[in-house]
């Protein structure tokens, strides 16, 4: 009897308990709101939709890493700086005729290594990652300044590797007018699928939840919490590097200030996407929804003719409301 009751937990209730319930409801609500209130029916158009998706790709990739870290109760404020590091290495090598493979490896793995340094400092010193990465983000950007001499990288040369990481889907655009999607979309979706799988279908994923939700209990059951967290920092660095590679592939430019504040956008997206700041709960799919919600709101602000610098305020309000809503909906469940 009892067993039967547990099994037959009603579907709506199960849905509300899931971390993506809040963001999904928000996404639908925002879509309906903007469809109604954006003038001239310009919201549900191919141009607008592809714009929303494109604007979400770079932040989206970074947000996946940030979400994993937040689930195991850590922060990475250096993610924006690592995007710039990745873009500089990848751009610098490809521009100077270096091997594309080497460029991609350097663009991904050096940020991954710096992510490992973040994790190492966090674990060895016991200083909260908020503080550790607040320091390292400044160090990484300063190192970039010194190494690059403060010069902006820019090229007008097209290389095949750029098309792979962030090329325009010309065939699609020709078939459907204004469908300006790019290969970055596949990278984003690929990473979402990969890390959602890792998070919910593997033991490592299970341990991430355990390390963030109840580290004491996790340790007691033999989980190496430190190693899990170290992995989280490395993944966050690798993904930031990938975002840098994708950024340079489309815009062929990198500056010291590239992706400044990206880490905060990612944290905001993760929170809007249902990840708890206290760790132990969250979802990669939710993170994707969070990024899309923020991207939609930005587009909505512009399409509704509001001054575009109001966007920042809209995001602020959204973070607060979404956090409140996500907590409320889970308490209800």
């Amino acid at each position, binding site marked *: 009897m009892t067993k039967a009751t547990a099994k037959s937990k009603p579907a709506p209730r199960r849905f509300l308990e899931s971390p993506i319930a809040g963001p999904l409801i928000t996404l639908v609500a925002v879509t309906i709101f903007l469809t109604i209130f954006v003038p001239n029916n310009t919201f549900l158009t191919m141009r607008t939709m592809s714009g929303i998706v494109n604007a979400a790709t770079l932040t989206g990739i970074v947000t996946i890493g940030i979400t994993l870290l937040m689930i195991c109760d850590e922060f990475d404020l250096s993610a924006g700086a690592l995007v710039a590091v990745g873009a500089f*290495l990848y751009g610098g090598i490809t521009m100077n005729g270096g091997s594309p493979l080497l460029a991609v490896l350097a663009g991904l793995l*050096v940020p991954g290594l710096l992510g490992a340094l973040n994790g190492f400092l966090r674990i060895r010193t016991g200083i909260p990652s908020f503080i550790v990465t607040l320091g390292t983000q400044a160090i990484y950007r300063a190192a970039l300044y010194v190494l690059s001499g*403060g*010069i902006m*990288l820019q090229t007008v040369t097209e290389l095949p590797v750029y098309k792979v990481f962030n090329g325009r889907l010309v065939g699609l655009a020709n078939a459907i007018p204004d469908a300006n999607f790019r290969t970055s979309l596949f990278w984003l979706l690929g990473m979402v699928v990969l890390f959602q799988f890792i998070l919910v279908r593997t033991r490592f994923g299970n341990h991430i939840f355990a390390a963030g939700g109840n580290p004491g209990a996790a340790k007691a059951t033999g989980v190496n919490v430190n190693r899990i967290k170290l992995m989280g920092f490395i993944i966050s660095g690798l993904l930031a590097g990938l975002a840098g590679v994708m*950024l340079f592939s*489309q815009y062929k430019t990198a500056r010291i200030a590239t992706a400044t*504040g990206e880490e905060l956008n990612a944290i905001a997206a993760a929170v809007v996407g249902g990840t708890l700041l206290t760790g132990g709960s969250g979802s990669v799919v939710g993170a994707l929804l969070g990024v899309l919600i923020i991207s939609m709101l930005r587009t909505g602000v512009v399409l509704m003719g509001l001054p575009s610098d109001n966007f920042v305020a809209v995001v602020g309000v959204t973070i607060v409301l979404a956090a409140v809503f996500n907590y409320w909906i889970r308490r209800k469940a």
Partner: protein
Amino acid sequence: MSKKLSTLLALVLIATMVLTACGATEPPAEEPAAPAVEETTAPAVEEPAAPAEDAAAKPLKLYAVQHALCAWDSFWCTVEDGIKNAAEDMGVDVTILGPEKFDLEKTAQLIEQAVAAKPDGLAVTVTDADLFRAPIQKAIDAGIPVVAYNAGNGPIIDNIPYLTYLGQDEYQGGYQGGMRLAADGGTKGVCINQQVGHAGLDKRCNGFVAALGEKNIPADVLAISDDPAASQTVISDYYTANPDVDIFLTLGPNGANPFYAFLDAAGLAAGTYKHGTFDNSPEIAAAIKDGTTMFGIDQQPFLQGYGSIQSLVMVGRYGIKPALPVTATGPGFITTDNVDFAVDGNREVNIYTVQHALCAWDAFWCVVEKGIETAAKEQGVNYTLLGPEKWDLEKMAQLIEQAVAAKPDGMAVTVSSVDLFRSGIQKALDAGIPVTAYNAGAGPVLDNLGYMTYLGQDEYQGGYQGGMRLAADGGTKGVCINQVVGHTGLDARCKGFVDAMTEKGIPAEVLAISDDPASSQTVISDYFTANPDVDIFLTLGPNGANPFYAFYTQVGLTPEKAKHGTFDTSPEIISHIKDGVTMFAIDQQPFLQGYGAVTTLMLKIRYGISPAMPVTATGPGFVDLSNVDTVSALSGKYR
């Protein structure tokens, strides 16, 4: 799983470390910070000690202190090139000092070090006015002329009494850019700002919006961010919401880059929009060439270096001070015409200067011609000077035609009659000959003729700055004594004076006198009887100053009771500056009009640099106790 995954990641990481350590990853421009912080340029040939009276050969030791160096930031190579070329042209020693990395404390120390060397002039990037105020003030107190370049806001806003700031006028950049974009009309404009709240960028947008407003075209500011993907979408969304937008201004590569991505994605047809941007980059240069972008706005760093040395040499040798608190080196416009310009500092330059009067029959012009001669000699420029043998504007028009027919590399003209000279000057412009106006003209905008700039006195600024000096310590009432009311130039002087007084809360009015000195003296005296509280007097030249001095002696005034300033110099005015009756004389600096005309053409022909403003002010230059001796010693030749 976790163990396997972490092992795998660790392996890959180690592999990369090894790979990257092998040296294949080459971070751009990686150079060990050069410890050398001194770069000295000496004149190519050490000239023999010049006769003491030849001011143009006076040796000068100058210092330039800047917050960055060519050794570690390539932008500064162009600035330093400008400094070195100017030093070589003018035959002066310049020592460039800068920190071996970005370090403002160190830069402040280097300013101290430069001051301690007791140079004849100092150029400084005022990157941090608060930090640099004390060392710069030390230089000024020691009587060292100081100019700011590249970074600064001018002596007034920085609150440091240096001579001028040479750099880009951001508002003018946006304004002139807007005027170009809207020249053939338009429906709606947008200024795409990547950092709303940044004072310089906001000024650019303000100028753009004002220019479009003048053309009755509505314009918005669109805020974008450091994320190019999000920025591209914001621009695209803005365009969706405002499909009638056809004028776009971006504020640098960070805005132009997502803008080009937007254009590419949206597939906007060429000719349906106009785009201009600040700055240059490989991408912008390519877009200018293929017609996507109308222009890039350049701050002209070469001119910042060249101009600051030239300003210091003008002060050190001739007592000629910069006319304005801000000397605009930019906006300079990069268009299809000059995007591929090949700089050649040794290019042979042959120019014509055509003027409506000559030294041979009007002594004023000896000083202008001396300026032309000096600049041409220093810069290795060949010039032919033409002028009528008497006042004859028809003849002057013919001389312009004659000069154009000779196909020179450049031409300087006194535009004393725009209607008579229009066709000749237009012929030169059509033939691709750069033209500049000097001494007479109103600038390309008011003259409605496409020459580069007009070098002459800014009359309003003369009155305004004069008024500000006279009212600096307060006062009760001011009067502008005008000998020809209705003369545009003189009225502009009085307007500037009255505006300055009003700003200081002092009532002021204009008193009309005449060419008759006796009656003028009486008018001034009567006015004083009726207004005994007047204590600030401005006269507009010797014709006003002479009757004023007669009145001054008659009434028995003293410098404590009456402050007096005047336009122009004369032996009488010079002697009264020395005895303290007259606080200053405002000089249009004719030497600089000749010198500047040659330099402007030379910079255009060799370096592709265009003057930033339609009017390049050579005056007001102030002659006061600080430089009256230099001025009187050089009177008739350089002053």
